[in-house]
């Protein structure tokens, strides 16, 4: 898990952590049920106060992104699958729109575009 804190940002540190973890959940680099570091070890690694990391985790839990089990720690919440899928689909739609616009600008036909899509789908 990569978290980078900026001291000069106007955003409070806990907010930066919340956003970065959310991003990683969205991108899929943090998977469902994956364990998060404890608030204390996160504070140690980021060189910030324990109360800050606790606040970040509390906020993430409030927003439904993680669950904290007493005595065990914090984990990425499962219910995000739906949310994740929907946001992913949105990203695909966005990228497809971009591709269509770019294709039209160089006069690619729909069938040429479909051909390209097929090749890439099978290759990647």
């Amino acid at each position, binding site marked *: 898990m990569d978290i980078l804190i900026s001291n000069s940002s*106007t955003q*409070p540190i806990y907010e930066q952590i919340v956003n970065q973890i959310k991003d990683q959940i969205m991108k899929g680099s943090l998977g469902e049920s994956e364990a998060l570091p404890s608030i204390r070890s996160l*504070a*140690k690694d980021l*060189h910030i*106060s*324990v*109360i*800050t990391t606790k606040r970040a985790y509390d906020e993430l839990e409030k927003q439904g992104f993680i669950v904290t089990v007493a005595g065990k720690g914090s984990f990425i919440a499962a219910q995000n699958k739906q949310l994740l899928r929907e946001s992913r689909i949105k990203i695909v739609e966005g990228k497809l729109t971009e591709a269509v616009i770019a294709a039209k600008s160089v006069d690619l036909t729909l069938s040429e575009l479909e051909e390209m899509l097929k090749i890439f789908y099978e290759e990647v």
Partner: protein
Amino acid sequence: MENILEIKNLSKSFKDFTLKNISFSLPKGFITGFIGPNGSGKTTTIKLIMNLLKKDSGEIKVFGLDHVKHESEVKNRIGFVYDESHFYEELTVKEMKRTIAPVYDKWDEQQFQSYIEKFGLPQNKRIKDLSRGMKIKFSLAIALSHNADLLIMDEPTSGLDPLVRSEILDILYALIQDENKGVFFSTHITSDLDRIADFIVMINDGEILFCTPKDELLENHAVLKGSLTLLNTAGDLNLTGIRKSSYGFEALSMDKNTTAEFANAGAVIDKPTLEDIMLFYTRKEHLHV
């Protein structure tokens, strides 16, 4: 949240200084910074906790125990690092340790050896031949080698280079992984506390100004800079430590929410550091409405 340290109505008078009825509590599992200008009473407070000075009145409880009635038990569980080393300069590191180790019930030789190795402290070197940084590290090694639950530090980082200071902070981070331990860190070098501290207690002229979570403190305050006309027309509450010059004024707003109108009028609003907070609170002029 249990309190690792509780101070109630503590008073102590000297010829030219008085600690006036101070009270604050520190929860365990956290690092509390104790800030204040020189002469504000930080060292006096710590000496009173350690019973090096006798209090005039008030109550001090460490781990829930009265610090005098259970002095021996309390001191067994406290590790201390002061700004001056009080070791015998003629002895070697090893000899000094041999003198101290038997005093503590729960001395852990293995822990001590691992710290010595980590710090690169030469055991057969005489203490007078150690640099200041090494002496502090030695103090720290001893403070952390008897299973102490509370670490009290009085200006441990003054005069140390940034690398050594960073090493010491790393040790504190590692220590606080155990939520049953606590750190009480008194300093006027607030940059060390800006990131690591969970709580801040500020003292000035023998009085406690506040005892709050650090995040809250930094979020509620803002450093304000603007034109003099702005200051006169605004008539705002909650500004402290105002300094005027021919170019404008600077002040600390104690309630960031009220600075919105200042922003609209072209003032500069900055995130405060602990040093800003300490500076503005201890400046003599205040503007209250």
